[in-house]
């Protein structure tokens, strides 16, 4: 059975390596990621937001609604930890 798992993992790994070969070169200016909206951010973000750090400009200004959701997710994680850990302790004591 362990041999079967090893075989599966090896096949999946080789498959992923085969996929990586097809990807554009690292930092290539013609890759799909850097021809769509990236030039707009690189050219306009300083003039529009007056913030030198482009990553913060994208995270907190252009995509701020996304970051709001991320903060809510973190908040929900804390509440879930609080509820689950306190509830289990209460059941053990009773």
């Amino acid at each position, binding site marked *: 059975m362990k041999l079967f798992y090893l075989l599966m993992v090896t096949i999946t790994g080789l498959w992923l390596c085969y996929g990586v070969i097809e990807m554009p070169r690292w930092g290539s200016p013609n890759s799909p990621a850097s021809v769509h909206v990236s030039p707009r951010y690189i050219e306009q973000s300083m003039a529009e*937001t*007056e*913030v030198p*750090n482009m990553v913060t400009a994208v995270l907190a*200004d252009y995509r701020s609604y996304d970051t*709001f959701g991320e*903060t809510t997710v973190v*908040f929900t994680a804390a509440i879930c930890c609080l509820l689950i850990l306190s509830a289990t302790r209460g059941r053990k004591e009773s």
Partner: protein
Amino acid sequence: MITSQESIIIKTLSRFLIPFIQLFGLYVIMHGHSSPGGGFQGGVILGASFILLVISFGYDEVKKRFSKRNVMLLTCAGVVLYGAIGVVCQLLGGNFLDYAVLPISQPRSMGMLGIEIGVGLTVMAVMVSIFRDLLTY
């Protein structure tokens, strides 16, 4: 439950280090615009400093400062600050989280600073809260 360490080296070193770690966390939050960092990273560093406080001085020593109520209040305050800035932008006539309508100089930069403080507060309180829940389980 973690109790206070006997070792004087750990106590002295953490008493010396914690203010600097917290100062660095505040710096990371405040300079999120012009250097790498931001609310999330700075909040995690601030939370880590409180975790170091608990590890070196014991949970009983810091229990009164981190009651469940205070930590949850801080967690909610961050999310509410974030949402409030968005709603204020809406009330002033813009879209949700459209900082350009805020009546201050450099409105978009200052709006980003406000929401990053909100994110930092939430993340710091969440880290302390999860750590405290695991510790008192």
